[in-house]
């Protein structure tokens, strides 16, 4: 199955393996890492996957931005979900410095919602017509539901519902 995948999408395995290596290196080094830097390897990988094989410069820019922000969101929602467990086990977590902050929930909500906002801005500029409703549902409903589920652990769910 790997050979078939590699044939159909050459270069994807290198993009992902490089990203995993960079992520591992970043999470094991001793210097403090900001949230943006922590999310960078995953975000970068998805930006490359989304824009793979495109030739139109505008599409490349939009798909790269969309992929970057989605990769960033995936990394950060996972970090938010695992925050307490990672701190208990002394594992790396991008949000660990804020775990005792009274503003933790609002900070998580701000970071995640801003990222989804950026996904939305890129998606709305894409002239996608087929399956637009399905993709819209994932972006505007699916991501929001996943966020609400994670944020409920920290006592907060945004009162603003997506329209």
């Amino acid at each position, binding site marked *: 199955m790997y050979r078939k995948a590699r044939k159909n999408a050459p270069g994807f395995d290198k993009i992902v393996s490089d990203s995993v290596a960079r992520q591992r290196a970043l999470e094991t080094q001793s210097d403090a890492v900001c949230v*943006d830097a922590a999310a960078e390897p995953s975000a970068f990988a998805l930006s490359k996957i989304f824009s793979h094989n495109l030739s139109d410069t505008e599409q490349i820019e939009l798909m790269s931005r969309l992929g970057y922000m989605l990769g960033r969101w995936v990394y950060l929602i996972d970090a938010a979900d695992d925050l307490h467990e990672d701190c208990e086990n002394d594992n790396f977590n991008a949000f660990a410095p804020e775990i005792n902050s009274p503003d933790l929930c609002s900070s998580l909500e701000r970071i995640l919602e801003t990222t989804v906002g950026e996904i939305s801005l890129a998606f709305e500029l894409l002239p996608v017509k087929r399956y637009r409703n399905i993709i819209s549902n994932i972006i505007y409903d699916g991501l929001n539901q996943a966020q609400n589920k994670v944020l409920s652990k920290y006592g907060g769910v945004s009162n603003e519902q997506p*329209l």
Partner: protein
Amino acid sequence: MSNPYEILGVPENASIEQVRQAYKDLTRKFSKEKYEGNPLSEMAQRRMKEIDDAYDEIIAGRSIYEATGRQSAGAYGADHFSQNEFGYSKSEFTYIRDTLNSGRINDAETLLDGIPPNARTAEWFFLKGFVQHRKGWMEEAYKNYEMAVRMEPNNREYAAALNNVYSSRSGGYKTARTHKHDADCLGCNCCDPCDICTGLICADCCCECFGGDLISCC
């Protein structure tokens, strides 16, 4: 030019009211305020120009009785570093601004990082924030814009950038849902939407690798 009706997303027998409503919806979707300070603002401006031209073409083709005057859209102005919009003056960072305007983000960041800490003015923090905003580093961008504003509270350019960095949170995400998608949705004349679905499925797989679940049904 592409079919103006397609651009506005209305059938060719749409009434003037329908054309006008479609134009209003699109204006709201790609408004200057929504994309102000965002790396995609120039693209949004080009899209808005297409929409304006399509609207003008449709209106011009209808009867004088039906057509209504509309003020010129020209509301977008120039890009982020335009002198007309923010009136910045030449400074030691002019070369870096020119580098950014030509799209060489990494080169600009290298130049900025080469400036020693004791020489980092408000403009440095603003430009650093701009670079980070372009890269997608929203949190660091905010911190640098905040420092620029703290150092020069009366600078409109810096204040606007600080206000805009989180604008996507409410302006983009929440209001975009009001757009009514065309039920037919036929014919994709550009990037393959399968690329997006593929990417979302990849994102779901990545999420599941880390123990999460982006799309619960697969």
